[in-house]
């Protein structure tokens, strides 16, 4: 019999190109301690720990649950580590949620992190070889295809880049703080992977994000309103096979359908108040709006262009500043889930979406083949707009 799962504590580090002031242990403890503080629980209250991060070669530390367990007070407890490429932060949150939903564990700490400044992300993404195309080089051709399919004007990507960086100025944790960013500056920034400009691309960050999850009984003791986990879904497809659509992957469509069905959502565009989508390169905002059935094909860029995805728009996307403003790969998916929870708890401060009650947290990874998403709400039984 499934237990309910609620997010009762969230904690993040300040994201930066290099967190020169901390060790790996210091980095993860910073996020974990904030989450524990936010939840008003102590280390001893945790029944299990679930950590997640992207490839170990990013830091050169193999199976880090082994060397980090002491720092997370996991000695004597179950701890395991999820690895699903870029989607890992959300996969990890989902793995932790199922520990609670199963009834096996009551209070679980979940954490995603990356300390990219210890190594080099482009090197790691290229398998350690010369000529790495990085993540941007992999996605740029698919972005070109989307632009061709949809007929979108070239400025749409630049608009996303400006929106997310200006949102980030309201987020004290964000890595990039660019109050002076403009469309012109994005357009004039160098082309890294044609057609993506430098300022349309995510940074490389150090950082960690953590949440304390618990069941309904534990949630009664939470000092702040909990964010209830309403539904979660994951889907995976092969990276390459004959006829694969990399621009609107079937796994992304299937994942969204499964998620909405479990959540009882029939009209995501109307019934979801805010979305934290994994947008590491600007054009992925319109691509995921379409790819996850929030709008029709070829309409995603119009939503962006019309300003609907602004903080005060009809469908705010990435009010936190998103992956475009902070990208510690192992943490980024967790941050999306955490920021969605923050919105429905009303704790998003300067970038709070007014009246947000239902939020989507999302991540993708690999060759746009891994998808992990969750819906959180302020009400354990949300009543959606326009539902029967």
């Amino acid at each position, binding site marked *: 019999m499934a237990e309910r799962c609620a997010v009762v504590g969230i904690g993040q580090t300040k994201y930066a190109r290099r967190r020169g002031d901390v060790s*790996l242990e210091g980095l993860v403890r910073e996020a974990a301690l904030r989450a524990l503080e936010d939840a008003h629980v102590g280390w001893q209250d945790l029944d299990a720990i679930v950590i997640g991060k992207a*490839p170990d070669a990013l830091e050169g530390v193999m199976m880090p649950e*082994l060397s980090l367990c002491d720092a997370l007070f996991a000695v004597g407890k179950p701890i395991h580590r999820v690895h699903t490429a870029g989607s890992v932060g959300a996969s990890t949150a989902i*793995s932790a949620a199922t520990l609670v939903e199963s009834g096996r564990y009551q209070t679980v700490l979940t954490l995603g992190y990356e300390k990219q400044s210890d190594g080099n992300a482009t090197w790691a993404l290229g398998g350690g070889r010369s000529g790495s195309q990085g993540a941007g080089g992999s996605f740029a051709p698919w972005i070109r295809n989307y632009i061709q399919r949809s007929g979108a004007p070239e400025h749409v990507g630049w608009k996303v880049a400006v929106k997310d960086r200006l949102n980030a100025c309201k987020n004290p944790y964000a890595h990039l703080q660019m109050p002076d960013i403009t469309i012109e500056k994005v357009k004039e920034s160098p082309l890294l992977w044609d057609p993506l400009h430098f300022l349309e691309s995510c940074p490389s960050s150090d950082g960690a994000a953590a949440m304390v999850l618990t069941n309904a009984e534990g949630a009664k003791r939470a000092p702040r309103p909990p964010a209830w986990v309403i539904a979660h879904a994951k889907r995976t497809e092969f990276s390459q096979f004959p006829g694969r659509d990399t621009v609107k*992957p079937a796994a992304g469509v299937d994942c969204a359908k499964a998620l909405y069905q479990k959540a009882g959502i029939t009209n995501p565009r109307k019934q979801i108040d805010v979305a934290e989508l994994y947008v590491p390169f600007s054009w992925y905002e319109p691509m995921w709006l379409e790819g996850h059935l929030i709008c029709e094909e070829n309409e995603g860029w119009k939503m962006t262009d019309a300003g609907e995805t602004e903080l005060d728009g009809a469908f705010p996307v990435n009010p936190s500043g998103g992956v475009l403003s902070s990208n510690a790969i192992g943490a980024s998916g967790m941050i999306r889930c955490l920021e969605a929870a923050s919105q429905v708890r009303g704790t998003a401060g300067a970038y709070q979406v007014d009246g947000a009650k239902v939020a989507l947290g999302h991540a993708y990874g690999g060759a746009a083949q891994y998808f992990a998403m969750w819906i959180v709400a302020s009400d354990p039984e949300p009543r959606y707009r326009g539902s029967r």
Partner: protein
Amino acid sequence: MSRFDEIAIVATAQTPARRRYPDSEASLLLDLTNQLLAETRLPRSAVDFTIAGSCDYLSGLPFAFVSNVDGFGAWPPVYESHVEMDGAWALFEAWVRLQVGDIDVALIAGSGKSSPGTPREIFPLQTDPYYAAPLGLDPVSVAGLQARALLDAGLATERDFAAVVARSRRAALTNPNAQVAKDVSIEALLAEPYFASPLRKHDLPPISDGAAAVLIARGKRARELTDKPVWIRAIDHRIDSHHLGLRDLTDSPSTRLAARGVGVHAGPLDVAELCVRYSPEEIVLRRALELKDDTPVNPSGGPLSGHPVMATGLVRVIEVANRIRAGGARRGLAHAASGPALQQNLLCILEAA
């Protein structure tokens, strides 16, 4: 554990452990997945959740695990996940996931090829990156420290280590999946020179490639899929401190905690398959588990006879399950370990209907 749903292993598959497979890991997993589906007559779409364990660093490629998806099948898209750990921890996650109650069938795998790299150079990266990894502190050396601690404490003799090896390698003669199987006397073993004293080369596991997979299902569904379900009565895992200087290497507190968690002695144990990668580990584990002297340990030969890293723990589960299905045991214990000197331990109690 009785408030949890009954979950059973309904089919198992493993490759023999080999020094080197020319096939890719994904190819091995493809074969095993096909085997499991054929045995249960299930289409791929009937598997609700798939989860694998593997390690990128063994293969030497960041994101190496992505290729393994080819082995399980992911078209149409599937619900799946991955842990950078032995497949036994993937089994744990699958068991937990099925307890949520909305899905019934899961496929779990573990795989690894140790042949391309030099494990003794790779595994130091599991240790503290500031204090230990730059010393190249490898698991063989740490096992040597554990072995000496046991000798110093009077808890074991070198002869005891050799006895574990001799028994394991002899038992492996009956295991078609073992890599190293031979009849060798304790005296002959003791005559060999030290490698990481007091350990000798034979006290170490072989270097192996291999893969393993199981299909599990909830109660009613399990009975539909096999007439010999092997019930997972309990599963638990715990971890000890990473800091060797804070540990008593002669004991395994995390194993003791996990043992309490699964109720190891809630019933008779007919067999135990333990992740004995270094012979002294058997002594530590037997003590921590409070095993009776007459409980058969590692009739498969254990990891000393074949060590497909990232599958080894899942293979222990499979060996116990197979023994139960064949009628050779009613209730058995499977153990998986991760990290230097048995830092992390997982236990699983399996039982016939």
